[in-house]
């Protein structure tokens, strides 16, 4: 079956099997940031935003995203112009192996988009699906706390569409 979606601001089509998971299709479409971890919705490394909600793309069928808007970390920042969340994570030394970072950043951005100054408790609730196997939670939390303290600025539209790495 054919699906059409708006992926990171661009209209994309894909010929997929109805059983295909969204994570696989996104990787086939070039979004290497979508990491395959547990494949059962437990680790959050595949987290992407679909129609404004951050979900585990390893559990969602790609067909469910047909007609929708999907955002991955590729749309969020670039090496030259990192999103404030990405900048804070780097400045805090919060990125170890980096495998969890795309999902972590997507989850954090979804929260900051709604609430620029979340409390520690709100951060804990909204990031409770993101596991870091390096166990670097303290520095991740410090980085996000730093963003929260300043209120996450909204990047200008189109500031970053390629070269994103996290």
């Amino acid at each position, binding site marked *: 079956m054919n699906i059409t979606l708006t992926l990171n601001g661009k209209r994309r089509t894909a010929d997929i099997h*109805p059983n295909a998971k969204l994570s696989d299709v996104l990787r086939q479409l070039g979004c290497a940031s979508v990491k395959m971890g547990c494949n059962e*919705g437990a680790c959050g490394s595949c987290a992407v935003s679909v129609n404004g*909600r951050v979900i*585990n793309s*390893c*559990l969602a069928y790609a*067909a469910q995203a047909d007609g929708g808007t999907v955002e991955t970390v590729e749309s969020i920042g670039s090496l030259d112009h990192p999103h404030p969340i990405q900048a804070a994570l780097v400045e805090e030394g919060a990125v170890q192996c980096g495998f969890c970072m795309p999902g972590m950043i997507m989850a954090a951005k979804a929260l900051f988009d709604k609430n620029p100054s979340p409390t520690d408790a709100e951060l804990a609730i909204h*990031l*409770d699906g993101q596991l870091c196997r390096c166990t670097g939670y303290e520095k991740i939390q410090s980085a996000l706390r730093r963003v929260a303290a300043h209120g996450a600025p909204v990047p200008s539209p189109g500031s970053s569409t390629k070269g994103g790495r996290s």
Partner: protein
Amino acid sequence: MKITAYHRPETLDKARSLLRDLGPAGIPLAGATSHAFMKGDDEKTAVDLAALGLDTITATPQGFAIGAMARIADLQAFAAPGWVLDRVALRFVSQPMRNMTTLGGNLARVFPWNDFPVALLALDATLDIAGDTVTTHPAATFFKGQPARLFKPGDLLTAIHVPAVGPGCGFGYHKETVVNMDFSLFTAAAWVRRDKRSLAEVRIAVGAGVPLPQRLIALEDALTGKAFSRDTVRAAVIAHAEAVSWKGGDGFSADYIRQLALTHLEDALHAAWNDAAGGAV
């Protein structure tokens, strides 16, 4: 299970018609989060219910009407006087899973550890199944066995009606997991109505640790009309927990689950009592 075809109908009638025609080859698709656990090679045609407009939460004169496709995150975010399901939602797995999982999906097929059946039993909710006509089922009936027994081919769970927790009433919910995102080892929910220092009405439900979520009617009867005190609650819980066949598993003995039950039943009742007084839960 393998999905070999996919439909996203835009009306309830079309969805019902598709599922009726497909019979066992069709599967309603809600949040899809449980599909990862459906092993085997059987091929299914998915009928996605996302476009049916069943995802709203509405205040009604009696409480709240929740569309079966409302996400757990919607329950988490909703706020209104008498609304308590946000407390249950917050203990549900993780934020990405709360963003995906639907209330209907958590109810239509019941595993022992499902969270919301326990809360809905304590809150005395009702559930609507759309067939040729809409039939309304009390939670106590709906969860008496696997809900599938109530569905004919093409029937769909469409709405859940939850009474508001009114003045003088309170709700308590306790869930035990090994780690935060884990399936429940034991879940307890309690709803009480206070009359000064007494428990005028009590509903208590448990899940996990038992084959299916259930009300503890004997314990409710033992507490109804009694003056509330720590000793009264503890004595009643201990006496009536003995009569329940607790189920162990996943490395936990039935006796360990019974011990969890004693603690969490007491805690849920105290939380409901304090909630009824407008205090902390």
